């Protein structure tokens, strides 16, 4: 009887001393983050207007954009450009391709928030090739909500333009590597 009591006491002691067992293992999560860019034109239609009735001021207007971008950490680049994909409609009005008067032009200047670098000076829009709005370097990233950019347009107010409303289309393209 005393032996059983000893056995039970020893067993209880062992159970009391038994601690929690633990074991560990490790694995790896791997992420490939690709370069990417997206663009939203927030001003769907930009009206060019002149505040003058004496041909002293050009027609002006501003197109606003929101861009998102991330470029590769080493060697990555990004570009934001525009091209006039449809010239002003109608006859007798302004034209990007064939201005009625030498010197008439549709031009723009750029405003781009960091990390973009805005185009320099005044750029003449073209129907034959894309022109720069902004460039981006390596390891550039926008905010999750997107960053702002805009182009301020200027169209010569030429007396030879026939009165009326004319429409052109500018197509913006953003890319990242």
């Amino acid at each position: 009887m005393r032996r059983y009591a000893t056995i039970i006491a020893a067993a209880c002691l062992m159970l009391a001393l038994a601690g929690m067992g633990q074991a560990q293992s490790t694995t790896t999560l791997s992420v490939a983050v690709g370069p990417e860019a997206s663009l939203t034109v927030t001003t769907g239609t930009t009206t060019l207007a002149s505040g003058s009735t004496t041909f002293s001021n050009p027609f002006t207007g501003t197109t606003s954009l929101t861009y998102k971008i991330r470029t590769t950490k080493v060697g990555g680049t990004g570009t934001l450009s525009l091209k006039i994909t449809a010239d002003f409609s109608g006859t007798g009005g302004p034209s990007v391709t064939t201005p009625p008067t030498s010197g008439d032009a549709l031009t723009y200047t750029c405003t781009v928030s960091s990390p973009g670098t805005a185009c320099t000076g005044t750029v003449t829009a073209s129907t034959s090739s894309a022109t720069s709005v902004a460039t981006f370097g390596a390891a550039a990233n926008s905010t999750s909500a997107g960053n702002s950019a805009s182009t301020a347009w200027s169209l010569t107010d030429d007396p030879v333009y026939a009165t009326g409303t004319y429409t052109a289309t500018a197509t913006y393209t953003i890319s990242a590597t």
Partner: protein
Amino acid sequence: MNVWLTIPALWAITAGQPVIKPAAPKLTRNVATVHPMANGSFTVSVSPATVSFTATNPNSAPVVAGNATATASWNNLDFNTGPWNLTVQAGAGSFGNCPTVPISAVTVSCASVSATIGGSGSCAAGFKLSTSPQIVASGNQALLTYSYTITLNFTLADSWKYIAESSPSCSLSLAYTATVP
């Protein structure tokens, strides 16, 4: 129930001490034979070794699923009863080679739990990864519970704030810890 608990303990206590002789030495020897691992000496296995994400476009795919479901498992027959759990934690605060990708972008979700012979288990709610251990699954171990299997899913919240880096890709070590009674 008490016999099964008592005899293994007696076998351990009496090793090298012939003064105390168990009343049923054959039974004692049998129990010792089916006690393959001492408490705390088991191994957790996790497969696959690497779970990968391919983050391509935060607009069209703001949440990216891992390329595989991970399975954590272990075998441990120690005849103890009580609560068990499995925790997961990151080895660093951000992905290696990609400091702009925070570990909190990764959500860990338990998909299923199984524990053999009387054991129970359930999944914890999904959580964002951190450097602190967080319980992904837990339950109760029964006397004869010897095997556990937990399946896990990982998702990554993609963001434009991340700097692109495809090669070498970004990596993060995860540590799994299984605690049994």
